[in-house]
């Protein structure tokens, strides 16, 4: 069989279950394609081929014993900020360049219990701070659709690996858009679940009130399949909500008659690429054609404060979370001194890259005596307003539709020295983290050969509604079947 690497999870599962394909065969094909393309894409931080083939052999035994669940024997890539026992987890940072976790993240445990096959850890912006992977301490990932462009970030390695068919699916994490924005830039499906839906135990902490793990997949069916496995309560993450996990694949129906769709006008922002706007408008018309009722004049008036609130809240939480990197317990450690303070300061000076330091400084400032009320507390109150906007909108609409990012992927280097420009590429995604609601990016067309992402937003724990809408749109459009030339 040719082109095994192009399979989706559900296609691979059908073949594995029918014994028309073994996991070892599939894993070999995926690794072979990965080796031939990743020299150009550079999505992977570390490929673990030998371990993957051992897992694949174990998966084949499970399948032979009649224990084939939908992820059994199917290869995936994991963002390098999720702990994998015995496999180096760098978080894109010199600080953790040689860090070998002694335990698995909750989501990794779940995947291993399902006999999933991890083939690689994915490149990312350092500590998930960035929108392009250019902040990785090691190298920049390239967009498979145009190697001169960024894949987005911070889960750029995960999204690029899926788009280039170097894996069947991937996991990413999303604090302000880090799953959805790269999924949009790379033309794949990326879901940020509701805050509290997926455990972050074993995820390197960035901003704890915003971080969430989610799937990056080739289609919406796969997204539902992965969410089925990773969602649910975990007593080791006290923010996970003890709600039942439905079978999300059952929500996938191509009928969305009567669905109430709102288009918040504040998301069709100034500075938006006109062709992206056209693609989003065409997608909205398609939803209408599929039976949704669309209101094009919805207002979320506090959206304009989202970016500012986010860049107070996330760096503040990051400055506290990253205080743990002191050169004592694990990670990089400056040793060339006998002074405790100098060792700590130099460890952090040499271990962290520029963007991480920038955010630690910003957060430290916003939390410091005399500025706390003006910045941090103010941002938390604005957060209440942003949340209330969504609560009000969801009283009248089931789904809100926006672009995932105001532009398609930009050129590597274009925004690297301008933090404010870089932050703007997340302007449509970060209010969703602030409110804690779920959001999904799905492919919605192309501009100059680069994918456009359509973002669908739902109310808390309404992933089923989001997935159903995404599925209906996907089934009616050709975008998810298109592949970059090197895939």
């Amino acid at each position, binding site marked *: 069989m040719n082109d095994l690497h192009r399979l989706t999870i559900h296609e691979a599962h059908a073949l594995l279950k029918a014994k028309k394909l073994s996991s070892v065969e599939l894993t070999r094909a995926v690794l072979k394609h990965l080796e031939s393309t990743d020299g150009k894409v550079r999505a992977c931080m570390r490929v673990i081929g030998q371990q993957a083939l051992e897992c694949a052999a174990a998966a084949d035994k499970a399948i032979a014993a009649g224990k084939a669940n939908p992820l059994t024997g199917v290869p995936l890539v994991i963002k390098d900020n999720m702990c994998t026992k015995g496999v180096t987890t760098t978080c894109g940072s010199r600080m953790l360049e*040689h860090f*070998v976790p*002694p*335990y698995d993240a909750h989501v990794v445990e779940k995947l291993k219990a399902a006999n999933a096959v991890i083939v690689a850890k994915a490149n990312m912006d350092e500590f998930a701070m960035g929108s392009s992977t250019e902040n990785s301490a090691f190298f920049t990932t390239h967009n498979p659709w145009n190697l001169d462009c960024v894949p987005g970030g911070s889960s750029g390695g995960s999204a690029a690996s899926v788009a280039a068919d170097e894996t069947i699916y991937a996991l990413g994490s999303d604090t302000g858009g880090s799953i959805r924005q790269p999924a949009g830039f790379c033309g794949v499906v990326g879901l940020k679940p509701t*805050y*509290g839906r997926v455990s972050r135990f074993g995820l390197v902490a960035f901003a704890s*009130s915003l971080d969430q793990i989610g799937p990056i997949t080739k289609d919406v069916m796969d997204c539902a399949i992965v969410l089925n496995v990773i969602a649910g309560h975990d*007593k080791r993450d*006290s*923010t996970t909500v003890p709600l039942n996990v439905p079978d999300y694949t059952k929500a996938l129906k191509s009928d969305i008659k009567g669905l109430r769709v709102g288009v918040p006008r504040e998301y069709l922002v100034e500075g938006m690429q006109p062709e992206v706007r056209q693609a989003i408008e065409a997608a909205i018309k398609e939803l209408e054609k599929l039976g949704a009722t669309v209101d094009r004049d919805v207002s979320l008036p506090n959206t*304009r*404060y989202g*970016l*500012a*609130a986010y*860049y*107070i809240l996330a760096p503040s939480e990051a400055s506290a979370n990253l*205080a743990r990197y002191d050169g*004592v*317990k*694990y*990670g*990089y*450690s400056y040793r060339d*001194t*006998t*002074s*405790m*303070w*100098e060792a*700590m300061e*130099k460890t*952090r*000076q*040499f271990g*962290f890259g520029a963007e991480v*330091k*920038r955010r*630690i*400084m*910003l957060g*430290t*400032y916003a939390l*410091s005596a005399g500025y706390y009320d*003006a*910045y941090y*507390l*103010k941002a*938390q*109150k*604005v957060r*209440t*307003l942003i*949340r209330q906007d969504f609560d009000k909108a969801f009283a009248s609409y089931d789904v809100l539709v926006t672009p995932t990012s105001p532009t398609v992927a930009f050129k590597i280097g274009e925004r690297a020295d301008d*933090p*404010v420009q870089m932050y703007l590429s997340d302007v449509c995604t970060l209010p969703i983290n*602030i*409110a*804690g*609601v779920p959001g999904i990016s799905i492919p919605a067309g192309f501009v100059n050969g680069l994918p456009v992402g359509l973002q669908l937003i739902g109310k808390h724990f309404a992933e089923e509604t989001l997935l159903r809408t995404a599925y209906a749109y996907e089934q009616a459009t050709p975008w998810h079947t298109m592949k970059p030339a090197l895939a």
Partner: protein
Amino acid sequence: MKLTDEEIRHIALLARLGISDADVEKFREQLSSILENMDILQQVDTTGLAPTSQSVALENIYRPDEMAPSLTADEVLANAPAREDNSFRVNAVLE
């Protein structure tokens, strides 16, 4: 909001972040420019609003204090930059 060199050095000290002279200048420019973009928050009327610290309204979560298996000392110390017996080794705290 324009920051001074002195403020940048003070913030770096609070964050225990070593900083070169070149970085002081770079961070002064960049953080001042970022903070200017934050000034928009001061226009918002937040009178009487409660702050939101996280978005899903869970109350305090308690669990029984029960013994359970945990990592061994060797596993915990495997990544330690310097170790002495079952402890992390650090420079003298009191000089």
